[in-house]
């Protein structure tokens, strides 16, 4: 058993052992990262390869682009996705576009770690889930692991794929425990079927998978068999598996922690509607900033009860 944070550190450590061009940089990575997701790496690989940086998001990301063009494979840490907004030019105009706009003369094999999600009363600027922003940008791969195993496997895959990857860990999953088999590799763009069912397909990702699993368990108690899919990769996404399942069950419920409006669930829902004609329901946060006080923050959370209720309403 190991934690989601330990699985991440292990994945980067294995990649660094294997490839001398892998370097890590970001604020506080030397002392292991604020969540322990880089623990032990600087002691092991030295300060030249695990680089503590100033609070310079534009240049952490932009230097990563320059390093990648010059032959390195940087892993850059943004601490929370909200801070990466200071580096949107470097992500969207540089990392994502350089390969194309230079006609394939250079590539940007860089993993950008942009943790998402609501955690511990952190309010409007430390709680967002912005995966759909990055899924919208040609050139980027977007991953959202829900388990320690997937954090390990997706990070390894991200580091090896040669494309710029936005790897979005969830801030309340860092301490979550699970088995990690280092031989188990995940293909980017491949969903995972968490449970099989015939009445309804539930698609989700990241921390929201936990509430979905709980809801599916509750539904099973009342005779509703839900099939639960963890998308894992937001782009590319496993449309074949989602379409096959939703065509079979005839019902698709997409759930995410991000704001529902223009969330990635809309993309999944619209595709399924067009391709399968199944019944569709989306469930995401209301379009409000995440508030600080518990009662305010709760308005942005999607609970297992919400999910179960949405599922029942579809099958009525």
């Amino acid at each position: 058993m190991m934690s989601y944070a330990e699985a991440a550190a292990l994945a980067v450590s294995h990649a660094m052992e294997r490839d001398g061009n892998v370097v890590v940089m970001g604020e506080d990575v030397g002392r292991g990262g604020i969540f322990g997701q880089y623990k032990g790496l600087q002691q092991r690989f030295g300060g030249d390869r695990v680089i503590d940086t100033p609070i310079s998001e534009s240049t952490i990301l932009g230097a990563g682009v320059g390093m990648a063009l010059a032959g390195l494979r940087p892993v850059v840490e943004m601490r929370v996705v909200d801070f990466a907004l200071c580096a949107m030019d470097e992500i969207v105009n540089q990392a994502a576009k350089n390969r194309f706009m230079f006609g394939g003369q250079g590539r940007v094999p860089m993993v950008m770690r942009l943790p998402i999600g609501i955690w511990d009363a952190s309010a409007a600027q430390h709680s967002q889930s912005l995966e759909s922003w990055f899924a919208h940008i040609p050139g980027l791969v977007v991953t959202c692991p829900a388990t320690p195993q997937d954090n390990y496997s997706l990070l390894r895959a991200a580091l090896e794929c040669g494309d710029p990857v936005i790897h979005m860990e969830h801030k309340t999953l860092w301490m979550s425990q699970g088995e990690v088999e280092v031989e188990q590799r995940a293909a980017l763009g491949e969903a995972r079927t968490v449970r099989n069912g015939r009445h309804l397909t539930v698609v989700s990702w990241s921390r929201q998978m936990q509430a979905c699993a709980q809801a599916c368990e509750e539904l099973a108690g009342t005779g509703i068999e839900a099939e639960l899919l963890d998308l894992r990769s937001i782009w590319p996404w496993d449309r074949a598996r989602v379409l096959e399942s939703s065509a079979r069950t005839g019902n698709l419920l997409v759930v995410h922690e991000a704001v529902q409006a223009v969330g990635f669930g809309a993309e999944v829902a619209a595709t399924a509607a067009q391709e399968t004609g199944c019944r569709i329901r989306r469930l995401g946060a209301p379009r409000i900033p995440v508030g600080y006080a518990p009662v305010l923050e709760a308005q942005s959370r999607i609970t297992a009860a919400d999910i179960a209720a949405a599922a029942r309403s579809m099958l009525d």
Partner: protein
Amino acid sequence: MLEGSQLAAGLYRTMARIRAFENAAEIASQGGVSAYGSSAGATAKVRGPLHLSTGQEAVPAGVCIHLRPDDYLTSTHRGHGHTLAKGADMGRMMCELFGKATGFNGGKGGSMHIADFSVGMLGANGVVAAGLPIAVGAAHAQKLQKRDAITVCFFGDGAINRGPFLEALNWAQVYGLPVLFVCEDNRWSATTASGPVTAGEGASARAQSLGLPSVQVDGNDVFAVHETAARLVKEVRATKQPLLLHAITYRVKGHVSVDAAAYRDPHELEAALQTDPMARARAHYQAQGGDLALLDAIDAEAAREVAQALAAADAAPWPAAESAFTDIQTTGAGQWR
């Protein structure tokens, strides 16, 4: 006059090639974009915004002569001069401006994204100051890989008012990276004069505030740029520490080629034209006993090269439509919707 004269002719040749290239591109770009009261038409060969460095040629000529092919260079939206001076092929660059398959970027980038990785030119950039973080990253890689090469980062006076300028200089200084920052101070930020919107003494003063040594030079005197850059490049190469060259020059044309710069005081332009770097190089060359006929021959040769580049670009094929779907990403390639 032997060695000095050859050097002078070499510097003049680089400037003449840049000037001739940009003059031709300027003509080919008229009607290429709707802006500044001009409308785009179907006949323009060079389409979209074309940013000319006319009058600034002494800076890339004087700096890049000291660089090796394995040194990196990052550029700006006004990057034709840097690219040619770094050794890129003029014909392929004209093809790229025309949007042809034979251009450096296969027609995917155009003037604003010109790049030639084979000579270490890591790209022009459509975003002001965006090249600075990329340059320090490239230099950081050179340091980590224990390479002997350096990185030269060109940017303009407008860039120093963006955050990445401060971040990148700080980065280069704290990590001790082999970067020569070159501020090509042409006094204009798009269509706004830089002076009134810039506090303090500009690029060199800001660099010094970070402990990063900087030198100011008359950027329209190619010999002064050459001499100063020789010293700075040598020092960056030897010490692996960053330095900044602040070259004062002047943007003779508007922000883009269809911008007549009517907002500018005509006296300012007139005064600037008196210090045109090519005219000054000619005068200097003659004063040193050089034969102007040689420089005339260089001009004629540059004109021939440009004519060939134009003809080649005209004749070259357009990119295949399918190439809009290549060089994007390998993971998920094919999933375009």
